[in-house]
């Protein structure tokens, strides 16, 4: 993330030195202004959804959703504590219903719950991240709305292509995630064994 941000800032500002230096700083401010207006919008959305999700939690409905989704969650995330599992269940459900930014609070809670204070993301965190970045949306409500506004003759004809594309990205993402997870743990194991084999001769010499 750090590398991405740094390269965007340096290359972006660097190019602007040559073609548009007058608006270079105002572009930065525009970005910041847009961030504030988005944050305000998000605040409104978060307040509503966190309120509703709290009702879901207090009625115990989230435990039921978690139980319903638990075969999938267990398969994808392995062993997790029940609190995290609940948050993941809420996140996946709100994602599928196309609630957009409403799935953010539950995702943040789930990731905080999986956090062990280390600076390296765990396999579960990465799986949740992949699932969210590949979009689980069944009904692309926002895009359909835009098409209606633009006067499309058949705004709904993108539902099927979107569903196919989403399935492709989600399935490939999950498969790659699982493969990389296995590869990583294998590499770690190999590293450990080579370290051990390196250590043993030293040990013998000392003897």
């Amino acid at each position, binding site marked *: *993330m750090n590398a*991405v941000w740094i390269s*965007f*800032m340096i290359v*972006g*500002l660097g*190019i*602007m030195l040559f*073609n548009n230096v007058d*608006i270079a700083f105002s*572009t*930065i401010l*525009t*970005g910041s202004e*847009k*961030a504030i207006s*988005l*944050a305000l919008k998000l605040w409104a959305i*978060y307040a509503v959804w*966190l*309120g509703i999700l*709290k*009702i879901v939690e*207090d009625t115990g409905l989230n435990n039921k959703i978690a139980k319903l989704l638990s075969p999938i969650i267990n398969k994808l995330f392995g062993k997790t504590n029940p609190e995290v599992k609940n948050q993941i269940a809420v996140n996946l459900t709100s994602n599928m*219903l196309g609630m957009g930014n409403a799935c*953010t*609070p539950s995702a*943040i809670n789930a*990731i*905080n719950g999986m956090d062990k204070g*280390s600076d390296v*993301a765990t396999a579960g*965190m*990465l799986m949740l*991240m*992949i699932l*969210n*970045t*590949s*979009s689980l949306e069944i009904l*692309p409500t*926002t895009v359909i709305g*835009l*098409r209606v506004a*633009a006067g*499309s*003759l*058949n705004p709904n*004809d*993108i539902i099927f292509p*979107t569903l*196919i*594309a*989403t399935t*492709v*990205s989600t399935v*490939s993402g999950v498969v*790659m*995630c699982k493969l*990389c997870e296995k590869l990583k743990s294998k590499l770690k194991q190999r590293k450990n064994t080579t370290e051990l084999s390196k250590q043993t001769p030293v040990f013998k010499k000392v003897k």
Partner: protein
Amino acid sequence: MISSYIIPILIILLIIYSVIKRKNAYSSFVYGAKTSFDLVLTSFPYIVAIFIAIELFSVSGLSTIMGKLLAPLFNILGIPTELSELILLKPFSGCGSLAVLENIFSTYGVDSYLARAGCAIVGSSEAIFYITAVYFSGTKVKKFSYGIPVAIISNLLGVVAACLICKVI
């Protein structure tokens, strides 16, 4: 639209359910809404940083340059070059890519192949970098190992599928 019924109906059902369960829906809601404050405060700095980078990315012309550089690769994958700006912007910002999509609507027509493929792309992927920055804002995590490459590749596969299926239909 059937989809506009989903959320209101779910909310009504939820409130009825909480009444049956004899829970205080009002105080639950208020308590939940209160936590939104913390969430916005912790994620805001990340949103600012990302948005400044996105703004520089599109205004400086970096996005068009990268689009031209990646055009040969996109051609091999069967992705029209007209969609390259959308595809490049999508991993960074959902709102930004919606603006580009509307631009595609007005240039090529809403029901054109390019517009439909663009819709499928926007609907099938998410803002990878934005999500990563905001989701991890409460932790100290800085290393995502295979996370970002996997997210980018799977989104690209989704894009290829979207372009292909829109061509067929």
